[in-house]
């Protein structure tokens, strides 16, 4: 104290101003982001907010961890809303702004940032076709991640149950828009994928505004979808919306019906195809049996024909022998005009062995004669 003059040290003054400033409420400040400086080794990021009309500047800091968690892909010159409060850098007596959160503002900036993120992830190969996995045809259970809005959930559950009534669906609801949605989507996705019966996941979100769908383009969500241990179908927004998670997912569906078609089979078709398989099974075995039976029949026929052939052959041989036999029979000799003379049934070869008056039998080719000897010329 110098008399009645109250004098502060610079440090005390700065500290006092700092304490006083901290009583001010948190506010949102709009400006263009410039001079963004971020380093992995630093605890804070530094940037300047500038008013494009007047050129007025405000220096700002933010915890790096918190800044990174936003994963905004910010670039210099972007329009942002920054929430925070005034602070004094006591060592230099400089006024600054301590930011707690940053939101991009302006559609163009969002689109540009999304495009940059998309390029970066594409360059990493996150959207590559060879990363896409086939979906199971008959999942034990379908995991369904939805917002609490009943429409997306109801539509999808109905579409699945209609197509495949025996389907088992495990539903996990989570916040899908607004602050913290991305982290919640990521953790819910992990819990669903860890369910022991879940073989395929559907991420469903009805249509919404551009901003509402932003969490589905959040880098963390996109990476979680790409690295999910079970295949993922993205059913987010409408046909014209292409959130980045659509690109990272294994399949994309623009309607609940399309999603259902991807994750469960059609029961009617399945039953028809099973019946058809069974019919073909029966027909196949019947044809094979028929083929073998036919072959057997042919063999049997040949078998049965064999003895007849043998007999025929023998019969022919016998007939031939008979012919030869007949050629040798005396009958043929008689035909040529010879006669056989028998006396008392014995063939008579010598005239001296008979005498006049004796009765003889004379056999001719046809018929025979009972004769009596007139004279013997011996």
């Amino acid at each position: 104290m110098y008399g009645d003059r109250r004098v502060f040290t610079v440090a005390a003054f700065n500290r006092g101003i700092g304490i006083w400033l901290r009583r001010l409420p948190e506010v949102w400040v709009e400006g263009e982001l410039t001079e963004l400086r971020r380093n992995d080794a630093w605890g804070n990021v530094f940037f300047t907010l500038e008013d494009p009309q007047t050129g007025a500047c405000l220096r700002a800091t933010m915890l790096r961890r918190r800044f990174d968690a936003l994963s905004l892909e910010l670039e210099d010159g972007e329009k942002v809303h920054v929430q925070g409060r005034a602070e004094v850098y006591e060592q230099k007596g400089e006024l600054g702004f301590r930011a707690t959160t940053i939101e991009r503002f302006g559609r163009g900036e969002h689109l540009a940032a999304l495009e940059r993120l998309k390029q970066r992830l594409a360059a990493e190969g996150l959207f590559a076709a060879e990363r896409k996995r086939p979906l199971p045809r008959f999942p034990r259970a379908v995991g369904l991640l939805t917002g609490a809005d009943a429409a997306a959930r109801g539509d999808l559950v109905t579409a699945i149950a209609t197509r495949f009534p025996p389907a088992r669906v495990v539903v996990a609801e989570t916040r899908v828009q607004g602050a913290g949605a991305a982290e919640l989507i990521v953790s819910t996705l992990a819990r669903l994928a860890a369910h022991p019966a879940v073989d395929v996941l559907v991420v469903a979100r009805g249509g919404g505004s551009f901003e509402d769908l932003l969490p589905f383009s959040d880098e963390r969500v996109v990476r979680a979808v790409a690295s999910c241990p079970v295949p993922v179908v993205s059913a987010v927004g409408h046909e014209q919306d292409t959130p980045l998670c659509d690109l990272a997912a294994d399949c994309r569906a623009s309607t609940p019906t399309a999603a259902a078609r991807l994750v469960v089979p059609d029961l009617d078709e399945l039953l028809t195809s099973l019946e058809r398989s069974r019919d073909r099974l029966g027909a196949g075995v019947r044809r094979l049996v028929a083929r073998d039976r036919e072959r057997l029949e042919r063999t049997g026929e040949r078998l049965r024909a064999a003895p007849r052939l043998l007999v025929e052959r023998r019969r022919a041989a016998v007939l031939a022998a008979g012919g030869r036999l007949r050629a040798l029979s005396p009958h043929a000799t008689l035909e040529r005009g010879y006669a056989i003379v028998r006396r008392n049934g014995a063939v008579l070869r010598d005239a001296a062995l008979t005498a006049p008056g004796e009765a003889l039998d004379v056999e001719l080719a046809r018929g025979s004669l009972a004769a009596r000897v007139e004279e013997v010329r011996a």
Partner: protein
Amino acid sequence: MTERPGPSFEEAQRELEEVVGRLERGEVGLDEAIELWRRGEELYRRCVGLLDAAEGRIEELASGDARGG
């Protein structure tokens, strides 16, 4: 696939198709054909049985946090 014994529906259906294909191509002998047919019928019954046994149901995943919404 640790939940239940035997082939999954997909496996059973695929094998059924194979069995039908082999029978239709007629590359097998009669004994084998009958055996294949038996196997095919068994697979068919398994597939239909799995469909009949599966009860459509909707479960809620136990919430890891209460902030959903």
